[in-house]
């Protein structure tokens, strides 16, 4: 039976600040309450509609009506999409309300009107086709006229609206039981509707579905007004009661008994409205227009042109076959344009902007992508599976069956990615392109902070609690508070306020909080994209679509990913400097791939600063596996990740690699597939091959397995696919010998575990190439490598101080920042040895000096070189603190080597502001700093020490106390008790380690790995988690080249100065 009422005006959390229910939760609740349809009208936002539709389609089968509440000439008005045209008009109106006229965007001058979307009536009239108009709530234009007793004006307004929408309009009537005035308004609206012959409709405008939702809504309302809940209550800005919740149709019918006409109208309107996700799908760019001619022909031409560059004039048979195969699939699925877009972007970045870029992910399985220069891995040479990238299968989706767009992620030097994005905007027109958004949901810290702010807790208490919530979702955070954390923090949760805090945090769980920009996802269209996918702009001046990556997947919109990668910047900076200083022109892809010295360095674990293989876990694994060729690095990249570690695949691989254990293949056919990884499934391509060969599955099924593995949240789906595979393996008569149930079970189990960490081999290849390049640079061009690393900073695993100590250990002379010969970036300088150059630290590393000051320095230096300390101060207008920091960092060293005297002179220049009565240059002779003081001052000024290591001055004392350094530790036998000390540079607490913390101690000779078990962490928490210098008593644990100290006692190592030192804390 059809419900007597349809709620047409529900709000979700995508009304950001005025809605407190997630779209999918709203739909689920609507189903429970007995609705057969529901309309969603968020404030100028369609962001929740895809989630709602997915929930409605897959779980609940109720009808979702897409709509939005817009401010039209300053007053709210609701519009519902009736059909595809209405859906597009709705998108266009939202875009108009959010960003105005599309071609008017200017990244350099972003408009500051976010949060106040509005549109003029004329624009609404222009886009009225396919839309159903509801006249808005009590603050709407019509209601306001009636409240002002302007009956004539109200009639005129209705007349105007009817002229535009015809019979596609209804006067909206609400009753939230707030008093006589509201009821009088309702009566007046109904009377007006009857007088004018216009239908009237009941709506309730709900914002939440339960008490928790109301609390969240109150909190959000109070925070929007910048006040606490108590203040908001006193000011009367909260809803006076809880009737703004989603009521059951029967309850609404009871409330409006005797006035059923408005209820029936809601059902009628709902029956006339429809919504399909595919209506949101914009047409892809008109590539013939962009590239000229037939796009498939153009693609084929570019591919074969690239193939000649990659493979030479004569293609081998496998190369030729592979290209033909891929091109036929691309043609069949209609993705030629997609490839051309990526090719053009990469080509422009590489050849016009001279930016390093490289495709990653499964795209590297494609020979077409390789020939187009998008990726750098030869899939034919490495026998990579193209189907992992593009299967040619059309998959069913909520918006109809469609070909899943290929996923090509392109890494670009992170410092220059914006240039590529600007090019995309320019090339495909600003109004036809937009970045993908990310919907951030509430997490423990912001839920606690928001709730506590609204509940009037002191700010410092809120911050303290918030800091302890980092690992929690809001509900888990509330549980943690109840389980003792509140007591530990001295927070009372037994009073009304405390209980409300817990309730609010639970209600915040999984609630969308804000929209931000995706790291690099782009969507393109041949028409203004905002007409299909509502667009808004960010404070940076970009334009983002109101849908995230998953929403776009559901709609079927291909996404172009341009991601920033620090390692590419590193390589670029290094290559540029090498070319400048030596004339050698290195390329990322023509480095010798079999350089024995580089592999020897990697096998030693001397990989600090390199890409992907620099973490302690990687180093520890590398010294075991001893990579000797590129494929070893490929495996290494894929292997040392949380998934394989949790899946307990790392140690078997290591043992087999070292020959301590023979590879085991449960079926002979697996040997061919898993031989290179010693019988351990590491790559997704291997899983697909297993399904293909042993299961004999068709490509659609193999693709289904790949997609199920890619979505670890859908465990039941994965289980079903694996179950199907097991059966297929048993049934496949081509297997010799036949697969037994035990074997099928074993393979099924392995794949189930593997699904949690499966990594495309092609992706690992892409990363391995960069990893190798960085290692090559480190060995052969150390000073340039560190220059690239520091100029690309922030990136990687280690702090600059650690990198500099590493550089010095590799024989690189490191010089402090200099305002005469240096620049804001690190540079190299000649040394006495013509074969080596010294590394000069850039000004940007000087602490306490902002970007604006650096820019002024650059400008002034460009004009003419600085001539003295006073010249720097006068031309750049440094303040006292900045002048002091430059002096401390020895940046005035060219004019005054003594840092204190330099500071004295710099401070004089800062304070000497009266040109007619200059301050005298007083003689000043402070005590020179000793080495130890210089080290600590370096840490304070730049975090980079060029004069030594802080442990040096403690060494004598430590030796007296029989405390070993990292060098001496190597002589201690396995299992021996030992005391070591050092500076903590990395503190790692992986979730997989169950409470164990790994410390990396640094001293003047190298590093010491410390393992702190959970029990020890609990016992020595303060020292382990907070002290910069520690002494550890423990046992030496050696394993084929790696040395760890298993700590049993921890002490603070007292030092005379406090060290300003960043520790890299990982979780």
């Amino acid at each position, binding site marked *: 039976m059809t419900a007597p009422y349809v709620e047409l005006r529900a709000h979700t959390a995508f009304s950001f600040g005025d809605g407190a229910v997630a779209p999918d939760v709203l739909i689920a609740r609507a189903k429970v309450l007995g609705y057969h349809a529901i309309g969603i009208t968020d404030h100028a936002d369609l962001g929740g509609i895809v989630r709602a539709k997915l929930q409605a389609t897959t779980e609940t089968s109720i009808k979702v009506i897409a709509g939005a509440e817009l401010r039209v000439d300053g007053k709210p008005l609701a519009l519902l999409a009736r059909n595809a045209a209405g859906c597009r008009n709705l998108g266009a109106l939202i875009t108009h309300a959010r960003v105005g006229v599309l071609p008017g965007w200017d990244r350099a001058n972003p408009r500051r009107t976010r949060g106040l979307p509005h549109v003029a009536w004329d624009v609404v009239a222009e886009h009225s086709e396919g839309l159903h108009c509801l006249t808005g709530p009590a603050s709407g234009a019509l209601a306001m006229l009636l409240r002002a007793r302007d009956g004539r004006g109200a009639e005129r307004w209705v007349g105007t609206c009817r002229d535009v929408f015809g019979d596609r309009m209804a006067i909206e009537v609400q009753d939230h039981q707030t008093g*006589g005035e509201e009821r009088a308004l309702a009566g007046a609206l109904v009377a007006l509707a009857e007088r004018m012959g216009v239908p009237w409709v009941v709506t309730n405008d709900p914002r939440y579905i339960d008490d928790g939702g109301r609390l969240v809504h109150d909190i959000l309302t109070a925070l929007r007004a910048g006040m606490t809940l108590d203040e908001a209550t006193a000011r009367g800005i909260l809803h006076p009661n809880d009737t703004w919740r989603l009521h059951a149709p029967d309850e609404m019918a009871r409330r409006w008994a005797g006035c059923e006409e408005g209820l029936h109208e809601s059902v009628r309107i709902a029956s006339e409205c429809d919504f399909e996700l595919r209506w949101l799908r914009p047409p892809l760019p008109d590539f013939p227009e962009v590239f000229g001619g037939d796009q498939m022909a153009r693609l084929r031409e570019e591919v074969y042109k690239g193939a000649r560059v990659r493979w030479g004039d004569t293609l081998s048979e496998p190369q030729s076959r592979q290209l033909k195969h891929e091109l036929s699939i691309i043609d069949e699925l209609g993705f030629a344009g997609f490839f051309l877009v990526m090719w053009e972007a990469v080509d422009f970045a590489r050849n016009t902007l001279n930016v390093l870029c490289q495709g990653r992910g499964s795209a590297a399985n494609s020979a077409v992508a390789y020939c187009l220069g998008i990726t750098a891995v030869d899939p034919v040479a490495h026998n990579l599976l193209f189907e992992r990238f593009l299967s040619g299968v059309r998959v069913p989706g909520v918006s109809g069956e469609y070909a899943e767009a290929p996923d090509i992620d392109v890494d670009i030097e992170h410092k220059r990615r914006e240039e590529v994005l600007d090019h995309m905007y320019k090339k495909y027109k600003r109004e036809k392109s937009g970045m993908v958004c990310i919907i951030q949901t509430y997490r423990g810290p912001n839920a606690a902070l928001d709730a506590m702010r609204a509940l009037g807790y002191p700010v410092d208490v809120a911050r303290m609690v918030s800091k302890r919530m980092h690992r929690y979702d809001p509900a888990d955070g509330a549980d943690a508070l109840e389980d003792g954390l509140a007591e530990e923090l001295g927070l009372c949760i037994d009073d009304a306020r405390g209980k409300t805090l817990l309730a609010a945090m639970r209600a915040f769980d999984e609630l969308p909080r804000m929209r931000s920009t995706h790291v690099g996802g782009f969507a393109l269209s041949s028409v203004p994209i905002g007409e299909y996918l509502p667009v808004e702009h960010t404070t940076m001046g970009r334009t983002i679509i109101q849908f995230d990556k998953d929403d776009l997947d559901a709609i079927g919109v291909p996404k172009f990913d341009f991601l920033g990668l620090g390692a590419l910047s590193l390589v670029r900076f290094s290559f540029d400097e090498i070319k400048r200083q030596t004339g050698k022109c290195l390329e990322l892809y023509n480095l010798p791939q079999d350089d024995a010295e580089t592999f020897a360095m990697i096998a030693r674990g001397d990989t600090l600063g390199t890409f992907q293989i620099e973490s302690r876990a990687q180093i520890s694994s590398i010294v075991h596996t001893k990579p000797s060729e590129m494929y070893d690095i490929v495996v290494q990249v894929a292997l040392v990740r949380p998934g394989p570690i949790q899946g307990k695949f790392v140690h078997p691989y290591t043992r087999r690699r070292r020959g301590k254990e023979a590879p085991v293949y449960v079926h002979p056919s697996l040997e061919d597939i898993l031989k290179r990884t010693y019988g351990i499934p590491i790559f997704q391509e291997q899983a697909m091959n297993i399904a293909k060969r042993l299961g004999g599955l068709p490509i659609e099924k193999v693709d289904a397995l790949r997609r199920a593995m890619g979505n670890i949240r859908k465990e039941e789906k994965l289980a079903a696919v694996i179950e199907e595979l097991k059966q297929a393996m048993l049934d496949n008569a081509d297997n010799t010998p036949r697969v037994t149930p035990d074997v099928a079970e074993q393979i099924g189990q392995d794949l189930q575990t593997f699904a949690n960490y499966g990594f495309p081999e092609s992706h690992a290849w892409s990363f391995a190439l960069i990893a190798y390049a960085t290692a090559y640079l480190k060995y052969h061009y150390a000073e340039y490598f560190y220059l690239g690393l520091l100029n690309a900073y922030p990136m990687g695993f280690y702090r600059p101080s650690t990198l500099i100590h590493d550089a010095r250990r590799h024989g690189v002379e490191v010089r402090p920042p200099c305002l005469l010969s240096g620049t804001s970036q690190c540079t190299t300088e000649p040394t006495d040895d013509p074969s080596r150059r010294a590394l000069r630290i850039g000004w940007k590393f000087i602490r306490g000096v902002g970007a604006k000051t650096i820019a002024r320095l650059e400008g002034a230096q460009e004009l003419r070189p600085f001539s003295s300390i006073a010249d720097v101060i006068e031309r750049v207008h440094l303040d006292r603190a900045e002048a002091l920091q430059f002096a401390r960092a020895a940046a005035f060293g060219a004019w005054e080597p003594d840092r204190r005297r330099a500071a004295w002179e710099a401070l004089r220049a800062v304070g000497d502001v009266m040109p007619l009565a200059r301050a005298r240059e007083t003689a000043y002779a402070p005590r020179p700093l000793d080495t130890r003081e210089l080290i600590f001052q370096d840490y304070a000024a730049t975090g980079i020490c060029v004069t030594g290591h802080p442990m040096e001055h403690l060494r004598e004392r430590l030796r007296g106390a029989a405390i070993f350094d990292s060098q001496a530790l190597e002589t201690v036998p396995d299992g021996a008790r030992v005391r070591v000390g050092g500076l903590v540079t990395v503190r790692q607490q992986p979730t997989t380690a169950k409470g164990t913390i790994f410390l990396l101690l640094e001293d003047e000779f190298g590093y010491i790995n410390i393992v702190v078990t959970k029990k020890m962490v609990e016992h020595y928490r303060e020292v382990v988690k907070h002290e910069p210098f520690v002494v550890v008593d423990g046992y030496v644990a050696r394993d084929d080249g790696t040395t760890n100290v298993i700590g049993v006692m921890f002490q603070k190592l007292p030092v005379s100065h406090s060290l300003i030192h960043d520790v890299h804390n990982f979780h």
Partner: protein
Amino acid sequence: MIACIYGVIPTDGVSEVSNAPDALARANGNSLAFHVALLDVVPRVSTTGAMIWADIRGLPECATIDRLIALLRRSGFSHATIGVAATPIVAEVAARQLARRQIPAAWRHVVDSSASVGVARVSVGDERAFLDPLLLGVLEPDPTLANLLDGAGFEYCRDLAQVSRESVEVRFGAAGARLWRLARGDDDRYLFDVIPRALPESSMAWSEYAIKRVERLVFVLNGLCGAVCRALRDGGEGAMAVTLRFSLANRTVFEHPVRAARPTSSQTVWMRILRVELERLMLPDAVVGIAFRVDALGPLGDKQGDLFDRGFVTASAAEAGLSQVLDDQGDIAVAPHNTRHHLLDRRTEWRPLDATQALDISPGLAHTDPVLTLQLLSRPTRIAVTTIERRGCQVPRTYRDGATVRTIVDAAGPDVVSGEQWHRPYAREYYRCVTTDGQLVWLFRDVQGHGWYLHGWWD
């Protein structure tokens, strides 16, 4: 010389000047006694931060310090230290360094090793030399300045003291110049309040007889008042408040404060006031002595009248008068503060006003044009109600008001209010009802407590 006592007030960051007595109380539990005893030893005492300062200029130095030591020991502060020097900074540094046992070896002789409480005496003329070997941190410069000084290589007081003032001022600004002076032992801090001057007072006592009659007392008082008023006139001031102190035959003392409406030095005015007061007084015994003491003074010439007759009084006089009232009687001036709380009974709060706010009574209150006025009960009265169901709601039909049962002919509602679940949750359904006798009453159902209440009526 100035003595600085360190270690009595806890250095926990809470001991600001304003709450130093509290800190003392925390430390000892008998702060009043300590203060009284301290004032007995040294008449001028002040506190800043964790320091207690005693002005021993003009007092016998050794004897006073001995008495201070004895007092500290007696009060349980044997761990405290005393720094004695001609300038506050040196005394302070000496006391603090002594407490930390960081007096430089070359200056150990300033420490009085025989004393049972640590005492360091720095002789006049030795101030700068005493500070020279100490780290600049002892002068407690603010962190920004300390950072600059550290960067330029100033480690010890002598480093800063030996450079020129101009070079310091150019580089470190005014704060640097101030520190430079301190580093040289030069400190002109104003530590002690001015000693309050004695107010006019006059008294007379007799032993041969005792006075019981008011006329005689007035006669005596007239003489005393005349003397006091003359003194007041000489100073160009008027008395605001006086105290009459009667010594009685039963050897007790009876004090009676008297206030005037405005400061005056007129003997006639005061005697008129006193005569009225004396006629009201009921003394327990005959009087053998009278003292007439001025408690508060004020400038002459400012009119004082009715506080609320703003055309008559001067603004300053009215403010001063109200301030006086507030001082004497606390937060008695209040004003209603209306909010837009959804519950009418929680809308008004009475908030205390200070003198300025109290005088600023704006005439433009929101204008209302009531046809009917809602009269709220101070507290909603619980009532018994019979209901009928309408659209799923229980609508009142009759209610009992005392012994009378009233029938409701029409009820509009419910108007639902609910909220404040984080504090005092409420949920009510209000009905505007017309009774058979024409009364318009306001009832509500407490949804949480399930009771019915009469909240008010319109008339």
